Protein backbone atom coordinates (compact mmCIF):
# COMPACT_ATOMS: atom_id res chain seq x y z
CA UNK A 1 0.00 0.00 0.00
CA UNK A 2 1.08 3.59 -0.39
CA UNK A 3 -0.04 7.17 0.05
CA UNK A 4 0.10 9.90 -2.55
CA UNK A 5 0.32 13.52 -1.43
CA UNK A 6 -0.16 16.61 -3.57
CA UNK A 7 -0.94 20.26 -2.89
CA UNK A 8 -3.75 21.59 -5.04
CA UNK A 9 -4.07 25.13 -6.42
CA UNK A 10 -6.25 26.21 -3.49
CA UNK A 11 -3.60 25.07 -1.03
CA UNK A 12 -5.37 21.88 -0.03
CA UNK A 13 -3.19 18.91 0.86
CA UNK A 14 -4.76 16.03 -1.05
CA UNK A 15 -3.79 12.66 0.37
CA UNK A 16 -4.73 9.59 -1.63
CA UNK A 17 -4.87 6.25 0.16
CA UNK A 18 -3.87 3.58 -2.38
CA UNK A 19 -4.61 0.16 -0.96
CA UNK A 20 -5.47 -0.41 2.67
CA UNK A 21 -5.59 1.96 5.62
CA UNK A 22 -5.05 -0.44 8.45
CA UNK A 23 -3.07 -1.16 11.58
CA UNK A 24 0.09 -1.86 9.57
CA UNK A 25 0.36 1.52 7.83
CA UNK A 26 -1.80 4.01 9.71
CA UNK A 27 1.31 5.64 11.21
CA UNK A 28 2.41 6.70 7.73
CA UNK A 29 -0.79 8.69 7.26
CA UNK A 30 -0.44 10.16 10.72
CA UNK A 31 3.10 11.38 10.10
CA UNK A 32 2.23 12.76 6.65
CA UNK A 33 -0.49 14.95 8.14
CA UNK A 34 1.44 15.86 11.28
CA UNK A 35 4.43 17.06 9.27
CA UNK A 36 2.19 19.07 6.97
CA UNK A 37 0.50 20.69 9.98
CA UNK A 38 3.94 21.61 11.34
CA UNK A 39 4.82 23.15 7.97
CA UNK A 40 1.73 25.33 8.33
CA UNK A 41 -0.74 23.49 6.11
CA UNK A 42 -4.34 23.79 7.30
CA UNK A 43 -6.58 22.26 4.61
CA UNK A 44 -6.62 18.49 4.22
CA UNK A 45 -8.53 16.18 1.92
CA UNK A 46 -8.20 12.41 2.27
CA UNK A 47 -9.23 10.73 -0.97
CA UNK A 48 -10.36 7.10 -0.67
CA UNK A 49 -11.08 6.53 -4.36
CA UNK A 50 -8.29 3.95 -4.60
CA UNK A 51 -8.73 2.47 -1.13
CA UNK A 52 -9.40 -1.20 -0.56
CA UNK A 53 -10.43 -1.51 3.06
CA UNK A 54 -10.05 0.37 6.34
CA UNK A 55 -9.93 -1.25 9.76
CA UNK A 56 -10.71 0.28 13.15
CA UNK A 57 -7.11 1.48 13.51
CA UNK A 58 -7.49 3.33 10.24
CA UNK A 59 -10.73 4.88 11.47
CA UNK A 60 -9.01 5.74 14.75
CA UNK A 61 -6.21 7.58 13.00
CA UNK A 62 -8.75 9.61 10.99
CA UNK A 63 -10.58 10.56 14.20
CA UNK A 64 -7.39 11.61 15.96
CA UNK A 65 -6.12 13.56 12.94
CA UNK A 66 -9.43 15.36 12.62
CA UNK A 67 -9.08 16.52 16.21
CA UNK A 68 -5.51 17.72 15.70
CA UNK A 69 -6.42 19.54 12.52
CA UNK A 70 -9.41 21.19 14.19
CA UNK A 71 -7.26 22.19 17.20
CA UNK A 72 -4.82 23.82 14.77
CA UNK A 73 -7.68 25.75 13.22
CA UNK A 74 -7.60 23.61 10.10
CA UNK A 75 -10.16 21.69 8.09
CA UNK A 76 -10.39 18.02 7.09
CA UNK A 77 -12.62 16.55 4.41
CA UNK A 78 -13.02 12.99 3.16
CA UNK A 79 -14.02 11.93 -0.34
CA UNK A 80 -14.31 8.95 -2.66
CA UNK A 81 -15.81 6.44 -0.23
CA UNK A 82 -17.18 3.39 -2.03
CA UNK A 83 -20.30 1.61 -0.76
CA UNK A 84 -18.32 -0.63 1.58
CA UNK A 85 -16.49 2.28 3.16
CA UNK A 86 -19.69 4.29 3.45
CA UNK A 87 -21.21 1.36 5.33
CA UNK A 88 -18.18 1.33 7.60
CA UNK A 89 -18.61 5.01 8.49
CA UNK A 90 -22.35 4.55 9.00
CA UNK A 91 -21.95 1.49 11.24
CA UNK A 92 -19.54 3.34 13.51
CA UNK A 93 -21.58 6.58 13.24
CA UNK A 94 -18.41 8.32 12.11
CA UNK A 95 -20.38 9.69 9.16
CA UNK A 96 -21.76 12.22 11.68
CA UNK A 97 -18.26 13.33 12.66
CA UNK A 98 -16.66 13.94 9.27
CA UNK A 99 -17.34 16.20 6.33
CA UNK A 100 -17.74 13.63 3.57
CA UNK A 101 -18.06 14.43 -0.15
CA UNK A 102 -18.76 12.00 -2.96
CA UNK A 103 -15.82 13.04 -5.10
CA UNK A 104 -12.51 14.79 -4.54
CA UNK A 105 -13.67 17.58 -6.87
CA UNK A 106 -16.75 18.27 -4.73
CA UNK A 107 -14.65 18.19 -1.59
CA UNK A 108 -12.13 20.64 -3.05
CA UNK A 109 -14.92 22.98 -4.09
CA UNK A 110 -16.22 22.98 -0.51
CA UNK A 111 -13.00 24.28 1.09
Amino acid at each position, binding site marked *: MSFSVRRDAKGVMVIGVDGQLIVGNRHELKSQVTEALERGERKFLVDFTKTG*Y*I*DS*SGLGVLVSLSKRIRESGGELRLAGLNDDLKTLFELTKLDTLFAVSDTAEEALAAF
Partner: protein
Amino acid sequence: MTVPLRLSVRHTSSADEAGLPFQIALAVPSDLGLVEQVVDLVARHSLAAGLPPRRVRFHLRTALAEALANAMRYGNRLDQARKVSVRVEFAVEAIHLHVADEGDGFDPARVPDPTAPDRIGADGGRGLFLIRSLVDGLEFNQKGNALCMTLRRT
Protein backbone atom coordinates in the same frame (compact mmCIF):
# COMPACT_ATOMS: atom_id res chain seq x y z
CA MET B 1 -26.74 -48.30 -39.52
CA THR B 2 -28.43 -45.82 -37.22
CA VAL B 3 -25.90 -44.09 -35.11
CA PRO B 4 -26.69 -40.87 -33.29
CA LEU B 5 -24.63 -38.19 -34.96
CA ARG B 6 -23.49 -36.65 -31.73
CA LEU B 7 -23.82 -37.98 -28.25
CA SER B 8 -22.62 -36.35 -25.10
CA VAL B 9 -22.16 -38.00 -21.75
CA ARG B 10 -22.02 -35.58 -18.83
CA HIS B 11 -20.25 -36.81 -15.80
CA THR B 12 -21.88 -35.91 -12.51
CA SER B 13 -19.81 -36.36 -9.42
CA SER B 14 -21.33 -37.51 -6.17
CA ALA B 15 -20.99 -34.15 -4.45
CA ASP B 16 -20.78 -30.68 -5.91
CA GLU B 17 -17.89 -28.29 -5.52
CA ALA B 18 -19.05 -26.55 -2.37
CA GLY B 19 -19.73 -29.98 -0.91
CA LEU B 20 -16.07 -30.67 -0.24
CA PRO B 21 -15.20 -29.05 3.07
CA PHE B 22 -11.56 -28.13 3.59
CA GLN B 23 -9.51 -25.85 5.74
CA ILE B 24 -6.60 -23.48 5.48
CA ALA B 25 -4.26 -22.99 8.41
CA LEU B 26 -1.31 -20.76 9.16
CA ALA B 27 0.69 -19.56 12.15
CA VAL B 28 1.59 -15.88 11.96
CA PRO B 29 4.31 -14.08 13.96
CA SER B 30 2.88 -11.16 15.95
CA ASP B 31 3.98 -8.44 13.53
CA LEU B 32 1.32 -5.90 12.58
CA GLY B 33 3.04 -5.51 9.21
CA LEU B 34 1.87 -9.02 8.36
CA VAL B 35 -1.85 -8.34 8.86
CA GLU B 36 -2.37 -7.20 5.29
CA GLN B 37 -0.60 -10.24 3.83
CA VAL B 38 -2.57 -12.70 5.89
CA VAL B 39 -5.80 -10.95 4.97
CA ASP B 40 -4.80 -11.02 1.29
CA LEU B 41 -3.92 -14.68 1.46
CA VAL B 42 -7.20 -15.67 3.10
CA ALA B 43 -9.17 -13.39 0.76
CA ARG B 44 -7.54 -14.88 -2.32
CA HIS B 45 -8.29 -18.42 -1.24
CA SER B 46 -11.82 -17.50 -0.24
CA LEU B 47 -12.41 -16.19 -3.75
CA ALA B 48 -10.85 -19.37 -5.15
CA ALA B 49 -13.30 -21.28 -2.96
CA GLY B 50 -16.21 -19.44 -4.52
CA LEU B 51 -17.20 -16.91 -1.87
CA PRO B 52 -19.01 -13.87 -3.29
CA PRO B 53 -16.50 -11.05 -3.96
CA ARG B 54 -18.32 -8.48 -1.83
CA ARG B 55 -18.35 -10.76 1.21
CA VAL B 56 -14.61 -11.22 0.76
CA ARG B 57 -13.65 -7.68 -0.16
CA PHE B 58 -15.51 -6.02 2.69
CA HIS B 59 -16.83 -8.31 5.42
CA LEU B 60 -14.07 -10.88 5.48
CA ARG B 61 -11.12 -8.53 5.00
CA THR B 62 -12.25 -6.01 7.58
CA ALA B 63 -13.27 -8.51 10.25
CA LEU B 64 -10.17 -10.64 9.81
CA ALA B 65 -7.85 -7.60 9.93
CA GLU B 66 -9.48 -6.58 13.24
CA ALA B 67 -9.20 -10.01 14.79
CA LEU B 68 -5.56 -10.39 13.73
CA ALA B 69 -4.57 -6.96 15.03
CA ASN B 70 -6.22 -7.62 18.41
CA ALA B 71 -4.63 -11.05 18.73
CA MET B 72 -1.18 -9.62 17.96
CA ARG B 73 -1.49 -6.49 20.08
CA TYR B 74 -3.52 -7.42 23.15
CA GLY B 75 -3.10 -11.19 23.13
CA ASN B 76 0.54 -11.64 22.13
CA ARG B 77 1.69 -8.11 23.07
CA LEU B 78 3.53 -7.86 19.74
CA ASP B 79 6.01 -10.48 20.87
CA GLN B 80 7.09 -11.90 17.49
CA ALA B 81 7.98 -15.22 19.07
CA ARG B 82 4.31 -15.68 19.90
CA LYS B 83 2.14 -16.76 17.02
CA VAL B 84 -1.40 -16.03 16.01
CA SER B 85 -2.98 -19.18 14.72
CA VAL B 86 -5.41 -18.71 11.85
CA ARG B 87 -7.63 -21.53 10.66
CA VAL B 88 -10.31 -21.04 8.03
CA GLU B 89 -12.88 -23.80 7.64
CA PHE B 90 -14.65 -23.78 4.30
CA ALA B 91 -17.90 -25.57 4.99
CA VAL B 92 -20.84 -26.07 2.66
CA GLU B 93 -22.95 -23.13 3.83
CA ALA B 94 -20.44 -20.87 5.51
CA ILE B 95 -16.84 -20.23 6.30
CA HIS B 96 -15.54 -20.17 9.85
CA LEU B 97 -12.54 -17.99 10.61
CA HIS B 98 -10.73 -19.08 13.76
CA VAL B 99 -8.15 -16.69 15.22
CA ALA B 100 -6.31 -17.65 18.39
CA ASP B 101 -3.50 -15.97 20.28
CA GLU B 102 -1.18 -17.07 23.10
CA GLY B 103 -2.37 -14.40 25.53
CA ASP B 104 -4.49 -14.35 28.67
CA GLY B 105 -7.77 -13.59 26.94
CA PHE B 106 -10.36 -11.02 27.97
CA ASP B 107 -14.08 -10.67 28.58
CA PRO B 108 -15.68 -9.36 25.37
CA ALA B 109 -18.91 -8.59 27.25
CA ARG B 110 -17.09 -5.79 29.07
CA VAL B 111 -16.05 -3.92 25.94
CA PRO B 112 -18.30 -0.81 25.71
CA ASP B 113 -20.35 0.21 22.66
CA PRO B 114 -18.24 2.63 20.58
CA THR B 115 -21.33 4.22 19.04
CA ALA B 116 -22.61 5.51 22.40
CA PRO B 117 -22.77 9.35 22.17
CA ASP B 118 -19.83 9.88 24.54
CA ARG B 119 -17.67 7.42 22.61
CA ILE B 120 -18.23 8.26 18.96
CA GLY B 121 -15.28 10.62 18.97
CA ALA B 122 -12.88 8.23 20.73
CA ASP B 123 -9.64 7.29 18.99
CA GLY B 124 -10.13 3.54 19.48
CA GLY B 125 -12.48 0.85 20.68
CA ARG B 126 -14.23 0.02 17.39
CA GLY B 127 -12.55 -3.28 16.51
CA LEU B 128 -14.79 -5.75 18.25
CA PHE B 129 -17.85 -3.72 17.33
CA LEU B 130 -16.90 -3.88 13.66
CA ILE B 131 -16.30 -7.61 13.80
CA ARG B 132 -19.72 -8.12 15.37
CA SER B 133 -21.37 -5.86 12.79
CA LEU B 134 -19.75 -7.54 9.78
CA VAL B 135 -19.91 -11.26 10.49
CA ASP B 136 -22.93 -13.55 10.74
CA GLY B 137 -21.75 -15.26 13.89
CA LEU B 138 -19.09 -14.63 16.55
CA GLU B 139 -18.01 -16.95 19.33
CA PHE B 140 -15.21 -16.76 21.87
CA ASN B 141 -13.62 -19.56 23.82
CA GLN B 142 -14.00 -19.51 27.61
CA LYS B 143 -10.63 -17.87 28.17
CA GLY B 144 -11.19 -15.19 25.55
CA ASN B 145 -7.97 -15.74 23.57
CA ALA B 146 -9.63 -17.45 20.60
CA LEU B 147 -12.59 -16.44 18.49
CA CYS B 148 -14.51 -17.93 15.62
CA MET B 149 -16.17 -15.66 13.06
CA THR B 150 -18.77 -17.20 10.76
CA LEU B 151 -19.55 -15.75 7.36
CA ARG B 152 -22.37 -17.27 5.36
CA ARG B 153 -21.49 -17.98 1.75
CA THR B 154 -24.35 -15.81 0.50
